[in-house]
């Protein structure tokens, strides 16, 4: 039943039909009631007319027979009207001259006080409206006049009207369903068009978009969201294929080297020393390869938000001092400066060591002899800012934009995996911080902003 429950077309058309039926039914009920009321009014008018006629004609006749004769004359040609005039000593007049009129009078008497407001009665299987009143006869008697009207033709008419109406209603409802289906289908057309476009998009065609111009406003939001999703998909797909391409490219070189030197060495017998040399050289390449793979894995995890830093309190100046101890060995003639105030952040010691270490190594490697490398720690807007700066030729604007991307090296043939800054960035981001690079004149600066650790309270 899932299909039935979820088909918008069907639901819409059933809703249309239900609405139409309700409106028609309400309208029908109203019309039928007002027709009924109108008929009742006509009947009342006629009955009261007859009552007035009986009073007018009957009040001046001297004898019961004369009265009956006058009334009989006045009523000639009337069908469906019953009139009974009863005196104190019995029936004076009946119209038509049958027991029906007496039965009506008896029935009217039985139902209680009937006056000049019409009352409905059923007599011998027929419906009547009845009024009654008194008549002062010429001979000084108060007679009772009962006037009845057979309303069968009215009820027949109303019944017929209702039958016709319900048939029309049924037909209208069915028609509404059909038209509703057509309307809904038509209304759903843009949705189907979207679905068709979406269905045609495969991994290779993520650049496709649903044209937003042709879409009705109601669907514009959906289409915009869908296109945005496609955009994000395309971006991550692009990242993924870039990642594979980068990886393949970067792995090819060392593997090519390994293969070449192994092949050449095996081509003829060599001395033990030469074999030892080969194996050692291979080992160096293996080491580089496994480091690269580990770094790439780290970056892949970082891009997918899988890097979860262990949190401990890390004093930044102390960290800087430790890094200076280590990387400072590489600085021959460059001047190393550690400055600023001691600030602490919450973070993963190993990761932060690695991130700032990479920045520092990068700075030392790009500082000319006699240049200056500085690491400063300062507070700015409630955050810790670690700046690693070095003197030296400025990095061009274009290179600065891609400096944190994988496998971007300042010197294409240079040492290093080209992953150091990318890793630094992903670590900083995993710690909820930000990193920026700027370069102008003779100064290149990398600034890392990290949330400050909450000040230690209590135990201190």
């Amino acid at each position: 039943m899932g299909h039935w429950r979820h088909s918008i077309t069907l639901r819409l058309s059933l809703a249309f039909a239900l609405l139409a039926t309700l409106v028609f039914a309400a309208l029908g009920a109203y019309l039928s009631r007002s027709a009924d009321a109108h008929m009742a009014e006509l009947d009342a008018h006629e009955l009261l007319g007859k009552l007035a006629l009986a009073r007018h004609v009957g009040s001046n006749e001297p004898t019961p027979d004369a009265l009956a004769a006058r009334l009989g004359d006045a009523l000639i040609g009337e069908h469906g009207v019953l009139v009974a005039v009863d005196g104190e000593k019995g029936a004076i007049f009946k119209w038509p001259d049958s027991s029906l009129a007496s039965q009506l009078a008896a029935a009217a008497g039985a139902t209680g006080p009937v006056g000049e407001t019409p009352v409905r009665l059923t007599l011998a299987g027929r419906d009547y409206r009845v009024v009654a009143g008194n008549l002062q006869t010429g001979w000084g008697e108060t007679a009772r006049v009962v006037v009845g009207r057979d309303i069968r033709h009215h009820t027949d008419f109303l019944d017929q009207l209702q039958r016709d109406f319900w048939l029309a209603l049924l037909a209208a409802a069915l028609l509404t369903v059909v038209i509703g289906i057509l309307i809904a289908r038509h209304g759903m057309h843009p949705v189907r068009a979207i679905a068709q476009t979406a269905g045609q998009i495969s991994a290779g065609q993520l650049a496709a978009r649903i044209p937003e111009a042709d879409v009705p406003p109601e669907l514009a939001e959906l289409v915009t969201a869908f296109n945005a999703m496609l955009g994000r998909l395309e971006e991550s797909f692009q990242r993924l294929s870039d990642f594979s391409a980068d990886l393949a490219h970067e792995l090819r070189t060392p593997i090519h080297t390994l293969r070449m030197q192994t092949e050449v060495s095996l081509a003829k017998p060599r001395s033990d020393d030469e074999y030892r040399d080969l194996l050692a050289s291979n080992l160096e390449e293996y080491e580089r390869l496994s480091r690269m793979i580990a770094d790439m894995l780290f970056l892949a995890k970082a891009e997918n938000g899988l890097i979860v830093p262990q949190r401990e309190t890390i004093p930044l100046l102390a960290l800087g001092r430790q890094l200076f101890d280590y990387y400072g060995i590489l600085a021959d003639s460059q001047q190393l400066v550690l400055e600023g105030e001691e600030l602490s952040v919450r973070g993963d010691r190993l990761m932060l060591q690695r991130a700032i270490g990479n920045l520092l190594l990068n700075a030392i490697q790009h500082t000319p002899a006699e240049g200056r490398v500085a690491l400063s720690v300062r507070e700015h807007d409630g955050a810790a800012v670690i700046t690693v700066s070095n003197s030296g030729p400025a990095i061009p604007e274009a290179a600065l934009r891609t400096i944190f991307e994988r496998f971007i090296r300042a010197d294409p043939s240079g040492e290093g995996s080209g992953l150091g800054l990318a890793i630094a960035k992903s670590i900083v981001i995993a710690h909820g911080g930000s990193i920026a690079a700027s370069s102008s004149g003779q100064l290149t600066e990398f600034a890392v902003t990290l949330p400050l650790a909450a000040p230690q309270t209590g135990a201190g």
Partner: protein
Amino acid sequence: MKILIVEDEAKTGDYLKQGLSEAGFTADLVRNGLDGMHEGLSGGHDLLILDVNLPGLDGWQVLKALRAAGRELPVLFLTARDQVEDRVKGLELGADDYLVKPFAFSELLARVRTLLRRGRVREAETLALADLELDVLKRRATRAGKRIDLTAKEFALLELFLRRPGEVLSRSFIASQVWDMNFDSDTNVVEVAIRRLRAKIDDDFTPKLIHTLRGMGYVMEIR
């Protein structure tokens, strides 16, 4: 020293056994968790090298069973996945150290020696090799009777070598022991530091004590 290796990967296991044997240890190799547990319970080994991913009984279960039976031998576990949870789990279960594959064999050897040494030998206060002498307490180094000035880190580096004569020390092991830099970085900091240390203790003397093993690291010994 008897070492038990539990490793299901054929080549890795064989080379671990060969490498450890050639480094002077008695190495037993089993290839699944169940055998590992039996050997570990009965074999009288001094150290266990345990792969985490094993068919049948995995490394964690073996470790649990051994600790539950009261076997307190040091355990070094090997894992292919560098997941923090893995490391934490292993250490919580009572392992003493871990290595993430791929690792340098010299690294493994260094860890094994550290674990075997732990709590066994009181660290000596004076160290010597040939005519090189180091007084750890007074922070003084002499060679052939001549006083050598060393920076704090140079002293730590020399002490590391002297405490492990004849052991191959990888660059990352040295970086982690001397500078507390615990990630593999692609730099020649250690090379430069060793070059400077050599200039002070080896260049003007014979025999040379610090030797480079290409691709593997450095060793201090009399050759």
